[in-house]
C-alpha cells in the first residue's frame, strides 16, 4: 500500500469578484511507504495547496487523494498523518507542554499516554527548557520545534511538512535535517515541500517538481540529474602566462585565485588534454574535479524560459 496516492488532483479558487485561480492541475503522485519525498516548486507553484488538500484543510475541486488507501477527507486518514504547516501557529497563551497535551487530547490519548508523548517529544525536540514558557514570546526556531512535536503527537506513520526549514538559521536547518533522517530511520514516510534545493538534495529519495500547479517531473534525484558529469574542472599552479593563455583558449571558463588557475571544460576529453598540457608545460596539477549537475541546474533547466527570471533561493 502506497503512503500517498493522488489522482487527477486539482484546485481552483473561486471568489466572488475575483478571477479564478487554478492553483493545482491534475496532479498524479505516488509516494511509497518509507520514502522521503521532496516536493519542489517556486513561490506560488501550488505546494502548500497540495499539502492543505492532503491534510483536509482544502477540498479539491477535481480528483482525489489517499493516505495509505484512506481518502484524505476521512478521519481515519488524518489519524495517519502528522502535519507541520508552513508557519505553524499555536495558541499563544499556552506553553509547549500544554500545547502538546491539547493535541494529545484531540487525538483521544489518555493522560498517561499524553505524559509519555511529552517525555518522548520534549526530549527529541529539546523543549524541556522552554516547557513552562508561553509560546507568545517564542522565536521562529522555537515555534518550529513545537510544530514538529505537534506533528509527531500520536506517532503517525506519514509526516507532511510544509517548508520545514524555511526561516531557520544554519543550525536550525541542520537540526530539522537530522530529524527528517531520524524519522526515516524510524520507518516513517516523509513528504515535504521546499524551494531550497540543497536541503532536498541531502535527504530525499525522490523529488517531484511543480511548475504553476503542474507536476513537470518526478523521480530519483540521481535519475533526474543523470549519472553523466556536466564537465571537468582542472586546477593547476606554476604555469607561465603563455601556457595559461593557451589553456584559456580551449576552456569554458577560467578563474585565477591566489596561486591557482581554475579551468572548466564541458567535454571530459578536453579536460584530459588540458591536464596533460599542464604537466607538459612544467605546471603542477592540483585538482581534477568532475562537475556534476546540481539539482539547481536541473531546476533551472526544467523551468520554461519565461519563468527563469526571478531569484531562486
Amino acid at each position: 500500500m502506497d503512503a500517498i496516492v493522488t489522482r487527477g488532483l486539482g484546485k481552483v479558487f473561486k471568489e466572488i469578484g475575483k478571477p479564478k485561480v487554478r492553483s493545482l492541475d491534475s496532479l498524479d503522485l505516488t509516494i511509497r511507504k518509507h520514502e522521503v519525498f521532496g516536493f519542489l516548486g517556486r513561490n506560488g507553484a501550488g505546494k502548500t495547496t497540495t499539502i492543505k488538500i492532503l491534510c483536509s484543510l482544502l477540498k479539491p475541486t477535481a480528483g482525489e487523494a489517499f493516505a495509505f488507501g484512506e481518502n484524505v477527507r476521512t478521519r481515519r486518514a488524518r489519524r495517519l498523518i502528522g502535519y507541520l504547516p508552513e508557519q505553524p501557529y499555536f495558541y499563544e497563551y499556552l506553553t509547549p507542554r500544554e500545547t502538546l497535551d491539547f493535541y494529545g487530547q484531540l487525538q483521544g490519548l489518555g493522560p498517561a499516554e499524553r505524559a509519555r508523548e511529552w517525555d518522548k517529544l520534549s526530549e527529541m525536540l529539546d523543549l524541556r527548557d522552554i516547557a513552562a514558557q508561553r509560546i507568545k514570546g517564542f522565536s521562529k526556531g522555537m515555534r518550529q520545534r513545537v510544530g514538529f512535536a505537534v506533528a509527531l503527537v500520536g506517532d503517525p506513520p506519514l509526516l507532511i511538512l510544509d517548508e520545514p526549514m524555511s526561516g531557520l538559521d544554519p543550525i536550525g536547518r541542520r537540526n530539522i535535517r537530522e530529524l527528517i533522517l531520524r524519522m526515516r530511520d524510524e520507518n516513517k514516510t516523509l513528504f515535504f515541500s521546499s524551494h531550497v534545493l540543497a536541503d532536498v538534495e541531502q535527504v530525499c529519495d525522490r523529488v517531484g517538481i511543480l511548475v504553476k500547479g503542474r507536476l513537470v517531473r518526478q523521480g530519483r534525484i540521481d535519475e533526474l540529474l543523470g549519472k553523466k558529469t556536466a564537465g571537468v574542472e582542472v586546477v593547476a599552479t606554476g604555469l607561465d602566462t603563455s601556457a595559461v593563455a593557451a589553456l584559456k583558449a580551449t576552456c569554458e571558463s577560467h578563474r585565477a585565485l591566489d596561486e591557482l588557475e581554475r579551468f572548466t571544460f564541458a567535454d571530459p576529453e578536453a579536460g584530459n588534454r588540458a591536464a596533460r598540457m599542464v604537466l607538459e608545460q612544467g605546471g603542477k596539477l592540483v585538482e581534477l574535479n568532475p562537475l556534476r549537475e546540481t539539482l539547481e541546474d536541473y531546476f533551472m533547466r526544467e523551468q520554461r524560459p519565461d519563468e527563469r527570471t526571478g531569484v531562486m533561493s
Partner: protein
Amino acid sequence: MNRILAVAKNTFREAVRDKVLYVLLFLAAVSIFGSKALGWISIGQDIKIVKDISLASTSIFGVLVAIFIGTSLVYKEIDKRTLYTIISQPMHRWEFLLGKYLGLMGILAVVTVVMTGVSAAYVLLLGGSLEPIYFLAVLLIFWKLLLITAFSLLLSSLTSPILGAIIVFFVYLFGHATGVFLDLPPQFHGTFAEKVLKVAYYAIPNLGNFDLRAEAANGVAVSGVYVAWVLAYGLAYTAVLLLLAALAFEEKDV
C-alpha cells in the same frame, strides 16, 4: 467527548483573557449600581427599578459578550491559522465547532451568574426581597444567550467578525420586535415586501418570548407551561443554528 471538552476548555481560557469581557463587565456593574439613581427619581419604586435595570443589563451585556466574542470565534482561528493543526487532527469539524460553542457558553454562564449575584446582593442590601420569578427571568436570559451565541457562531464560520456582529445585532433588535413584520400598513397588502417580511417573521426568532423583566420587577408569577414552551422554543432554534453552522463549516476551505 474529550475532544470537544479540550476545545471548550481552551476557548474558555482564551475568553477569560479577552479584554472585551472586562470592559463589558465593568459597564454592566456601573449600570447595575447606577440604577439606584433612577430609583430616587421615582420614590418608592426604587427596588423595582433596580431589579428591572439589573435584568436589562444582564441581558444586554450578555448579548454583547455573545456577539463580540461569538462572531470572531471561528474566524479568528482561521485568520490566525491556529486552525490548521487542529482541523487536520483525527476529529470531526463539528466537534471543534461544538467545543468552541460550549467554551463560550461556559463564559456566559459565569458572566450571568456573577451579574445576577451582584444584582441580587444589591437588591437585598437596599432592603428588597427576591422572588423565584427573578431567577426564572435570569434563566430565560441565559436561554436567549444560547440562541444568540449559536447565531454568532454560524456567522463566524461564514463571514468576518464585523459584518457578523452587525447582522447578529440587527437580528437581535428585530427579534425583540418581530410583531412589526405582520402588523403592516394597508398599502403593503399583497406586495412582495409583505411576503419577505412574513418569511422574516418566521425566520427571526421571537426574542420577546424570553423577556420576563416586567413580571420579575413586579413579582408576578408566570405559568410553568409558558416557561417550558419558551425553553423548548429556544433549544430548537439553537439546535437548528448549530446544525447550520456545522454544515457551513464542514466543507469550508481554511
